[in-house]
């Protein structure tokens, strides 16, 4: 690992942060940043830097970096682009090894020279530098948060095992918000912008060794370092599942080429090849991305044989169809299992696959059948489709589903289709970390990814607990 990548620990776990451009004027970048950091319970030292002020948020404000006598681990830049190289050089000389450069106005707006200048300083001092032109990072464990969007507008996710890497700050914003909404916990969030110092491959390398990170999600538009990116995806996906979302699939590459292959291979074919070669999990949309993320807190299935338990016949049938269509199998139950299920449920319910507990189903029926299925070695995964709308369903079902989800003998996915009442139940389940879906197809696609990952990964025994 290169020194600049190692130095990222100063960015993620700093004991002290300096904010260049800290401000008392509401809604300025340096103001929101200070406010967020002060309210995020970051326990390290904060040094505001701005020659205009004596004090920012009640903290002593410094004129420049050299004025600070204490050690600084990480500097966050919230000042105009042109002024940054000079100050970064000063940081380098002072031995500061972590930096987040939020400011835009570099390569993305045609200022290639300025970007090159920045690159040289970063390389010279081996600074673990995120950005420029980005949101920076968020670490729910160390409470570092350089996301310059107000807390009341953008909820912050809880601690968890998912690390998210994004090239786009906008998508990053959506992801943070959605993760918080779904109750998905993050280990690290990194918006890396122009990737002048640290790029996506560096981040993968760092996160591979990060203890808190159990699963990595990557939003990517393009890479400048394709070969290395492929190599890192391949290697790290074997240890920690990587879910990718590629945007910009159809820009360019469309002009007529001389050969058939040239015409067939648009911009996206190479990325598609890379993802398949590395065996990472590819999502087609942001919705799918979250659908897939949710299921990867389950144990890895040993095969493709799925069981459906439902209290809504039609819902079970829809799931069964989606299972067949997406290359999974409906498990065949032996007579013994069928008998055992039959003994435990009402006489007119059907004990097969799907097992339909009917609209009369009680919470206990679900629990009993789940327990029977959990111990059956011929079943690899369980779909639990619940109509919360039926008379006998009540909030105790939430505990049953949570127990099933954390059982870890087999992966489960819950499908609950419905309106506001059902949505409220779904939200609670999501906050418990139960993979819950609003449609059978979404649940099946997610389970399929888990099965694919499991069957191709060499480490089938590992249980990914987030």
């Amino acid at each position: 690992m290169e020194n600049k990548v190692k130095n990222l620990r100063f960015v993620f776990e700093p004991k002290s942060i300096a904010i260049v451009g800290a401000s008392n004027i509401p809604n300025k970048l340096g103001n929101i940043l200070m406010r967020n950091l002060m309210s995020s319970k970051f326990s390290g030292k904060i040094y505001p830097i701005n020659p205009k002020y004596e004090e920012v948020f009640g903290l002593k404000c410094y004129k420049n970096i050299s004025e600070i006598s204490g050690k600084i681990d990480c500097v966050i830049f919230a000042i105009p682009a042109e002024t940054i190289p000079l100050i970064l050089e000063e940081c380098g000389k002072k031995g500061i090894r972590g930096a987040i450069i939020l400011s835009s106005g570099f390569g993305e707006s045609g200022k290639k020279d300025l970007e090159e200048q920045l690159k040289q300083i970063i390389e010279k001092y081996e600074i673990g530098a995120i950005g420029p032109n980005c949101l920076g990072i968020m670490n729910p464990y160390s409470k570092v948060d350089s996301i310059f969007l107000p807390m009341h507008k953008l909820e912050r996710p809880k601690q968890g095992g998912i690390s998210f890497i994004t090239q786009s700050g906008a998508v990053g914003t959506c992801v943070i918000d959605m993760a918080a909404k779904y109750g998905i916990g993050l280990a690290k969030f990194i918006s890396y912008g122009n990737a002048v110092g640290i790029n996506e491959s560096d981040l993968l390398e760092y996160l591979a060794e990060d203890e808190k990170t159990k699963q990595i999600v990557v939003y990517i538009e393009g890479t400048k370092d394709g070969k290395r990116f492929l190599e890192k995806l391949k290697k790290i996906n074997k240890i920690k599942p990587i879910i990718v979302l590629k945007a910009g699939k159809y820009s360019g590459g469309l002009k007529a080429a001389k050969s058939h292959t040239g015409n067939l291979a648009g911009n996206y074919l190479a990325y598609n090849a890379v993802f398949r070669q590395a065996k990472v999990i590819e999502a087609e949309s942001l919705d799918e991305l979250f659908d897939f993320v949710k299921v990867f807190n389950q144990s890895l299935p040993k095969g493709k044989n799925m069981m459906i338990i439902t209290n809504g016949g039609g819902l079970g049938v829809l799931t069964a169809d989606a299972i067949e269509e997406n290359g999974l199998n409906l498990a065949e139950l032996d007579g013994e299992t069928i008998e055992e299920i039959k003994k435990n449920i009402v006489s007119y319910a059907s004990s097969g696959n799907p097992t339909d507990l009917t609209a009369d189903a009680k919470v206990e029926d679900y629990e009993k059948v789940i327990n029977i299925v959990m111990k059956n070695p011929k079943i690899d995964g369980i779909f639990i489709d619940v109509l919360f709308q039926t008379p006998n369903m009540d909030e105790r079902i939430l505990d049953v589903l949570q127990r099933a989800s954390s059982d870890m003998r087999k992966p489960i996915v819950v499908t609950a289709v419905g309106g506001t009442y059902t949505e409220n139940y779904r939200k609670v389940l999501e906050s418990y970390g139960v993979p819950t879906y609003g449609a059978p197809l979404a649940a099946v696609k997610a389970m399929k990814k888990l099965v694919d990952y499991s069957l191709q990964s060499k480490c089938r025994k590992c249980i990914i607990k987030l």
Partner: protein
Amino acid sequence: MGMLEDFTLLEQYGFGLIPYKVAKNQKEAIEFAKELGYPVVLKVISEDISHKTDVGGVKVNIKKEPGLKIAYDEIIENTRGKKIDGVLVQKMARKGVELIIGEKKDPQFGHMVVLGLGGIYVEVFRDISARICPINEEDVEEMVNELKSHPIITGTRGRKPINMNSLKKILKRVCKMATEEDIKEMDLNPVVFDEKGCDIIDVRITR
């Protein structure tokens, strides 16, 4: 690059090509056809013509000498006005599954091999799969499985599966050649496979 240079490069890299000879006139064509054995194919060789079939520069499945004479004259007639370097006399290829095997150099990831079901609808269905070079045998198996049309390759309705070893060899060889020669784009299209092996019918290399 011309067809003959493309053929030579392929031969240097150990691609087995269907036996062929280049005839400068009708007499030579007759002689070579006898030597190679009927049935044969005639193809015009000309850097002026990029789609040989479209202009009537290709005649296939010629079974006897009289037919060969007519076919030769027709090709010359059809391509009048173009600069012609000769006529290729090639032994007729085996019958089987037509695949396209291609290569493209991606600006970010480098050389990439592409596999698809060949034939005239390849650009309509876009049923293709790809991998970045170098590739291994498992990659080839996955490339086949990713095609919607994979049962045609792996055997369906009494048809025998194609020779997977030939496919693996040819794809790996394409990677090797593309990387070493730094080839921008390449089509082997079609390559005809049966259970015993394969024949490369046509090639186009863009440096």
